């Protein structure tokens, strides 16, 4: 009975009893439990990527009116497995003059920094890796380690395009970190804690309902931090070389790939946790196993939207991307904090329905205002390259017989 309500805790308790009964000290049993739990979580997150790659390719295929992978296994579901087996047997090409240590440690850092986020996410009422009192800040801080990984990759490859790509990536990541942290202040304000578990528990009303504007800013910033279209400036495949990972091959390249996919899903997970109520839903306290399901559904929904972004939006120019961040999102998120702090204090003791209505109205006003401001101060069209009267081929100048198709 207990097993079906909350399998993870049940198995954990059972294992602990077993270990203590075999004569291990409680400390040792605890330690083994920690190692097993962490190993299980990290491994399943890594394995999830295989599935994510299939989902993403299939969905993008469908969006673009293609089949997507459809050869290996039913619906092509084993395609990433085949790809993985292949990439395992690919040669590592280490460029001449590479800084060996930096070059080799960079992919490991990139994956590890994303995986670390999973350690503090609560997956259900009872299951959380580590309930840190500063869990949310921890999520933001491990991103900094990932940035170090990208710089190491770009610098260690001894390739100027890799270095340029790394600079661009870092400039993008740190720029978008600013509105991301500032908009994340609002859930922290209303939850009154930095612990991720605390933020989830405080969401009797989802924070996306109380603060849609902050959620929007956070979402845009997190999409930008994944480095996917429309923000894939750093590795714009069709314009630049592939960015910081140009000199990587085999599974070292694959690790950056894994990091990117895992990052996309992890960002969706973070968004679902701090704005969509995490594992919360009807009956999730009594039956913690339902929490997994709710969290999975919410995360998948957010993840689906990021895939839609990727599949449908054209790429930004780099100056547009930076302008969006520094001239729109950053001042906007700061003003959201100011206004929400004021309004939140005004209606602090009101009934919930009234509070939510006021918050929604304020957020709507904010969004409309920023939209009007953007429209009024529309950017001037980009500076034209070269002189205005360029030599253009004109019909009357051309000899008539040289272009038979256009003569009629």
């Amino acid at each position, binding site marked *: 009975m207990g097993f079906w309500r909350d399998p993870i805790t049940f198995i954990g308790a059972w294992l602990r009893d077993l270990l203590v009964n075999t004569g291990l000290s409680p400390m040792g049993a605890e330690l083994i439990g920690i190692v097993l739990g962490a190993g299980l979580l990290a491994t399943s997150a890594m394995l999830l990527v295989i599935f994510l790659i299939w989902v993403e390719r299939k969905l993008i295929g469908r969006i673009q009116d293609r089949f997507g992978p459809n050869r290996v296994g039913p619906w092509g579901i084993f395609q990433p497995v085949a790809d993985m087996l292949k990439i395992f047997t690919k040669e590592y090409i280490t460029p001449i003059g590479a800084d060996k240590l*930096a070059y080799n440690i960079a992919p490991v850092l990139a994956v590890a920094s994303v995986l670390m986020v999973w350690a503090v996410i609560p997956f259900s009422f009872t299951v959380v890796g580590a309930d840190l009192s*500063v869990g949310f800040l921890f999520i933001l*801080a491990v991103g900094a380690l990932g940035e170090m990984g990208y710089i190491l990759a770009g610098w260690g490859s001894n390739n100027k395009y890799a270095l340029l790509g790394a600079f661009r990536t870092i400039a993008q990541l740190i720029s978008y970190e600013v509105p991301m942290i500032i908009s994340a202040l609002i859930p922290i304000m209303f939850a009154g804690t930095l612990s991720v578990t605390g933020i989830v528990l405080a969401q009797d009303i989802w924070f996306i309902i109380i603060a849609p504007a902050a959620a929007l800013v956070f979402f845009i910033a997190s999409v930008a931090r994944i480095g996917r279209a429309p923000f894939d400036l750093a590795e714009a495949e069709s314009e630049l070389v592939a960015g910081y990972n140009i000199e990587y091959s085999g599974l070292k390249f694959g690790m950056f790939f894994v990091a990117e996919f895992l990052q996309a899903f992890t960002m969706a997970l973070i968004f679902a946790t701090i704005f969509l109520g995490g594992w919360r839903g009807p009956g999730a306290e009594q039956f913690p196993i339902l929490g997994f399901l709710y969290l999975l559904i919410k995360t998948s929904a957010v993840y689906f939207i990021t895939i839609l972004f990727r599949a449908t939006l054209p790429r930004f120019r780099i100056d547009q991307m930076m302008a969006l961040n520094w001239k729109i999102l950053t001042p906007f998120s700061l003003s959201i904090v100011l206004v929400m702090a004021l309004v939140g204090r005004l209606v602090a003791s009101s009934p919930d329905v009234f509070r939510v209505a006021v918050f929604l109205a304020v957020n709507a006003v904010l969004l409309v205002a920023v939209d009007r401001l953007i429209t009024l101060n529309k950017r001037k069209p980009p500076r034209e390259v070269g002189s205005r009267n360029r030599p253009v081929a004109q019909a009357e100048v051309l000899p008539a017989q040289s272009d038979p198709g256009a003569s009629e």
Partner: protein
Amino acid sequence: MTGLQIIFLIVTGVTLFSAIMVVSVRKMIHAVLWLVQTLLGVAILFITLQASFFAVVQILVFIGAISILILFSVMLASRVIQDSSPQVVKKWWLPALVATLLLGLLVNFLALWPGFETTLVELPEGSDNIAELGHVLISPEGYIIPFELASILLLAALIGAIYIAIDRKEPQSS
């Protein structure tokens, strides 16, 4: 010797070693990487002191921002780095002597203080009270003046640094 003490010794050893590497390696990029490792070590020391908030802030600010800024300025000045001229002054042993003497002096001086040998015990849950920190930072009886001054200092730093870094009258020599 408890487990925590062993962790402390390992972390401190790695941290101090990385700090020595920061001041002694020739390649500046490597110096920055050693600096990152030192800062991580300091963050772990903060964790053993139960200051979780500042441990994470250490990673966020010092590694995520300051060391990246240093790295960028190293790359900005990268032409100078390639030269193989000595990176340290000739009489390097004199500062080494001074630093060692200072260390001995400091430790001796601190050992005079009766609280020196105190064993730190585990604080009760929630001693690293962020909300309390917020209260103290804002309240007039607390540290509101330093708080607002910090904002002005940051503003001054921002304006000053941008004014200096963006050099419109840059002589185009290259």
